[in-house]
């Protein structure tokens, strides 16, 4: 579903954000992208959205090499990708329903499609009762659910999330992760860039770690940090659930996928 082949991305000012990065993510996988600040996680996501082009290397998404995509095809690529951010990016003057419907309206979906799909997805994220509220009247967790509903309403093949729980408390974060997990179970490939060590440790899904732009770890059923840092993260685990120390720290092959 997603394939990076020796991708290098340098920003002007000669910051190397990704260095010779190769990775394979299959359809239906659930992947955490971790690493310290500035390690290139957001860059990874921006490349997938084709907001940036790599300096060298190639990227495939849904069977297409996106570097070769002509400019006018980019919107059609993005219709297959949902994306949520730390700051939600909702439209403050539109209601919950309108915010989600907007995503379908602006890609020309007819009214009857909007009127069936939006309630469905609001039901999925558990916000049917708040459909007429404005984002300002919702808690952070609820706002992020609206953002997820908007990203998912067009049934994308891939859902990207850049620190989706960065602004949320641990309990709310867990709810958001469960929601993303549920979406993943519908067959959608989910990639989450995060600093949330407790969450990563708890979910035990594939972890890809970047450090200063270099892919340093790719591990199935991984944890946030290795060894010492695991227990450190575990000690601070906000959910209070016991953290098992991973017995398998060897990076798995790129084809490794959570069953």
């Amino acid at each position: 579903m997603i394939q990076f082949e020796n991708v290098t991305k340098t920003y002007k000012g000669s910051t190397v954000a990704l260095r010779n990065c190769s990775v394979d993510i299959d359809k239906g996988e659930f992947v955490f992208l971790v690493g310290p600040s500035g390690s290139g996680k957001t860059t990874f996501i921006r490349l997938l959205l084709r907001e940036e082009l790599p300096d060298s290397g190639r990227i495939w998404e849904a069977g297409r090499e996106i570097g070769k995509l002509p400019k006018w095809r980019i919107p059609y690529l993005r219709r297959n990708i949902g994306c949520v951010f730390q700051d939600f990016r909702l439209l403050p003057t539109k209601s919950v329903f309108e915010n989600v419907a907007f995503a379908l309206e602006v890609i020309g979906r007819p009214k009857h499609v909007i009127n069936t799909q939006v309630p469905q997805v609001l039901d999925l994220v558990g916000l049917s009762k708040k459909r007429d509220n404005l984002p300002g009247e919702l808690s952070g967790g609820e706002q992020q659910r609206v953002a997820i509903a908007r990203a998912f309403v067009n049934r994308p093949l891939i859902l990207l999330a850049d620190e989706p729980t960065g602004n949320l408390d641990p309990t709310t974060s867990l709810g958001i992760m469960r929601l993303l997990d549920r979406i993943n179970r519908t067959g959608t490939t989910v990639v989450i860039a995060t600093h949330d060590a407790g969450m990563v440790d708890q979910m035990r899904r594939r972890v890809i770690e970047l450090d200063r732009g270099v892919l340093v770890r790719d591990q199935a059923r991984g944890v946030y940090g290795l060894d010492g840092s695991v227990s450190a993260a575990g000690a601070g685990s906000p959910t209070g659930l016991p953290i098992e120390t991973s017995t398998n720290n060897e990076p798995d092959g790129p084809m490794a996928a959570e069953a």
Partner: protein
Amino acid sequence: MAVSVGYVSREATSNLWRNRMMTVAAVLTVAVSLALVGSALLLKQGAAHATERWQQGVNVVVFVNAGASHSQFSSVGRQLHQLPYVKSCVARSQAWDYAEARSIEPAEVFQALTPAITPSSWRCALNQPSEAALIVQQFAGKPGVEHVASPSAQIRTMETVIHVLQWAFLAVAAVLLLSASVLILNTIRMAIFARRREVSVMKLVGATNWFIRLPFMAEGLVQGLLGSLVAVLVVLGLYFGFLDQTKTAANQSSLIVQMSLGATEVTVTCIVVLVVGVLAGVIGSALAVRRFLDV
């Protein structure tokens, strides 16, 4: 994917309303500049008409002395023919001039004339009536020439005034049109800024570039169109107020009557005004979209 007309007009209208002060300023500037363009066009066409009428009616007439010899008469004719700005030149006999004098001169003047003392003449059509002065200069006082009759200085002054006025109008109109485009560009820029959140979401969820651009383009187009509609009203007001052919009966000799225009000319003027207004709007908004809307 088709961009729905309903969507585009809804978005454009709400943008226009949000920035209504700027919109009014832009529309008024378009209106004033295009009213000037329209007036200049009317003036130009009116002047062309008037000139045409003068040219038909008033040629330069070089009267040759009644007593001049035949060779003197034809030498004056040859010299006239050689002038580059003389279109054509026809000789009139004494008898012809006598007959003409009888029909146009008051009785006292005509009674003093006999065919024998009526001078014969050369009647010249000119490329431009303003060149009549040159002929007067060159031929008045030449041997054998009695008198050179030309369109009055007043008419020539009038023509110069109209000419200057017309260019002044067009120059002012050009400057105003430029500022109108800049104003439109600025309103669109503000609209884009006001909608930057929507625009970023649209890009994120995969709205096509034209879907994002069109409401802003339509907004510029509407501003240009509204302005030019006001200008069209001004042009029509001028036409029905002053230059309408149906009023010619009132005062046959007035300049206004000589400038009178037909309905086709006014229609063409209105169409030009509309097209220029729409172009100003579209160009202004296209520049804003290119410059400020990163899609």
